[in-house]
């Protein structure tokens, strides 16, 4: 198993410390790690186990239960296509199919260049503007299939500039 770098160890330890006064801190620790570290691989889980005294088996059980926690790193842009009912009846399946075709990945996968992760979301509560796509928290309203190539192009350009 790969060893964590020192900076990562410090970061994870700090997150665990942050919640040490909470009765049952595991969910909060994992949420913060997911948000700040980006993903929760096994070596991170082992460290959390050491810090909190919760067994790795239990931590692994929780990490794999919730769809927000990820064992692998996500892309720079996480493209979340809403497949809630309101979006679905307005053609969201065609939108995600188009992303899938153009990015060459299936929902849950990340492109080889690490730029895009495609996710199928279960209702983000933006039903008024269906079909909605959420990319890194920015919500694109009433997305049409023809818009998809342009969205991808814009993001690629943005990434190239950065």
């Amino acid at each position: 198993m790969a060893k964590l770098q020192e900076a990562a160890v410090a970061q994870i330890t700090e997150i665990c410390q942050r919640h040490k006064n909470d009765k049952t801190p595991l969910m909060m620790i994992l949420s913060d790690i997911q948000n700040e570290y980006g993903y929760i691989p096994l070596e991170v889980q082992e460290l959390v186990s050491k810090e909190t005294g919760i067994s790795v088996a239990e931590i692994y059980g929780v990490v794999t239960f919730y769809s927000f926690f990820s064992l692998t790193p996500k892309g720079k842009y996480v493209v979340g296509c809403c497949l809630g009912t309101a979006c679905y009846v307005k053609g969201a399946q065609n939108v995600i199919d188009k992303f899938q075709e153009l990015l060459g990945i299936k929902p849950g996968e990340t492109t080889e260049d690490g730029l895009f992760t495609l996710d199928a979301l279960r209702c983000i509560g933006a039903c008024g503007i269906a079909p909605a796509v959420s990319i890194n928290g920015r919500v694109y309203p009433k997305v049409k299939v023809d818009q998809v190539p342009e969205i991808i192009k814009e993001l690629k350009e943005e990434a190239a500039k950065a």
Partner: protein
Amino acid sequence: MISTVNDLNERFEALSKSLDDKIKGADGLRHIVLCGGTGCLSAHSTEIMERFKELLKEKGIENKATVNQVGCFGFCSQGPFVKIYPEDTLYKMVKIEDVDEIVEKDLIGGEIVDRLLYIDPKTSEKVTKQEDILFYKKQRRVALNGCGVINPEDINEAIGMGAFQGIKRALTMSQQEVIDEVLASGLRGRGGGGFPTGRKWQFALNVEADQKYVVCNGDEGDPGAFMDRSILEGNPLGVIEGMMIAGYAFGASEGYFYVRAEYPIAVKRLKIAIEQARAEGLLGKNILGTDFSFDCQIRLGAGAFVCGEETALLNSIEGKRGMPRPRPPFPAVKGLWGKPTCVNNVETLACVPYILREGADKFASVGTEKSKGTKVFALGGKVNNVGLVEVPMGTTLRELIYDIGGGIPDGKKFKAIQTGGPSGGCLTEEYLDEPIDFDNLVAKGSMMGSGGAIVMDEDNCMVDVAKFYMEFICDESCGKCTPCRIGTKRMLEILTRITEGKGTMKDLEELEELSQTIKANSLCALGQTASNPVNSTLAHFRDEYIAHIVDKKCPAHVCKNLMQYKIDAEKCIGCGMCAKGCPASCITRTEYVAPGHKLASMAIDADKCVKCGACISTCKFNAISKV
């Protein structure tokens, strides 16, 4: 600091006057408010607000007008909205480019910008005020009180709107009196269960314990419902106050908000509201000078639908996998960390301050015999006025879809309304005059659920919709009990088979048998109701299932294996645009030239076609159709 009832009274008097002055213009200022709900934010409401601020400064009138973002207006399909007080002018679908004109013409010139007004689709007349729009006329706001009016990040506006008047009155009553008041109001759980809220509190009051908890269920997982999100985003203090009243009523001093991680804006505003309430002393020790102490915290979900089930939610707060616990013991007896706990939905708690402030009778004065008050619906799908609406219980489905919703777009035909999400069912045309309440919709084979209402038209395939919900349930089943874990998988396989044209009539019997088994043997509501969408589509749209199985046709032309794209040779002028855009290169020129045309028509090779539909959107001559 507001440490006594007197402090609150003084602040309320001053702040309600200033809120009133703002709305009526007695302060001599103009006030611009923008919708800050998720839909409008995605349509650049914040950038529009910044542009207003910039322009007011540029024109030197920043002292004459204020600019603020408020909660959701509810009318999402027409957003983003800009409203100007005191005239109460409402502008719809405002773009950044429009700001200059609004400032120049309206704020400086005092003239209304006609082209940004809402046009009544029936009379074609322009409407200037929100209350005159048909969409709002039949609505009555109790749970959504304050949403779209007050700035959700400013406790002063909430206090001016009457926040904390409910808890103030509750604290003068005994615990039993508060519960009796809530019982008398007839309030039932808005999350879908419909259990009388007062009775739940009574159970928890009757248990002796050193610690009790209130939990607010903000894990709004039903796809298509977003009322809890809008309430938390639009008036978070209303929900906090509801939680405080619950805490007082059965003796809890701690509360937990469990909110979906998918709702970052709601979480942010809730955090701000809690901090502001703490700073004012309205949360913490000895609230309003009494011996009642209460504080609350936020816990985030992590994307598991089953956590909307109350016992799974409690496990999730405890840092475990969100799997349901067997009941009894009910949470009111043994809940969070084994202590008596009441789990109430966001909308339920948002109704509570109103009941205490205005009295149970006023709350119960609207609604039907067994369902009192109002209900918020998230109206979505194939309906003109998509948005959030709050109507008295007993409103008919027809009023909801046609009067408030403005009917079906593009002249299409209504097919069904799906309520209750993955636990609910569909109702057809013949049920449109049924009044909506908890019991009546259940009696008709659907349910009100948490209030998602998705309208479907002739272009929606009901077998595909049933498959969609089953996919959802299959994905979200926690796996704890076998009937749900394996049964839903088998049902999904059958539904997939049918939509691919490989189904048999025996499949329908098997669907029914599986659905009974799953219903009877699952531990929690997710499993017990998992087959509802299949049952109700089978009951109302059996002919569509049979068309898929026997005729190998999808009447709505949705199921890709059972439909084809065809070019009408008589209509095709042979321009070839479709062939250029075809990703599968399956469109070629024929030798047939239709009378009156110069070029030979195009044709699709059905074997190669991937059914992406690209050709249909490029054809300007309506020559391509689905068959």
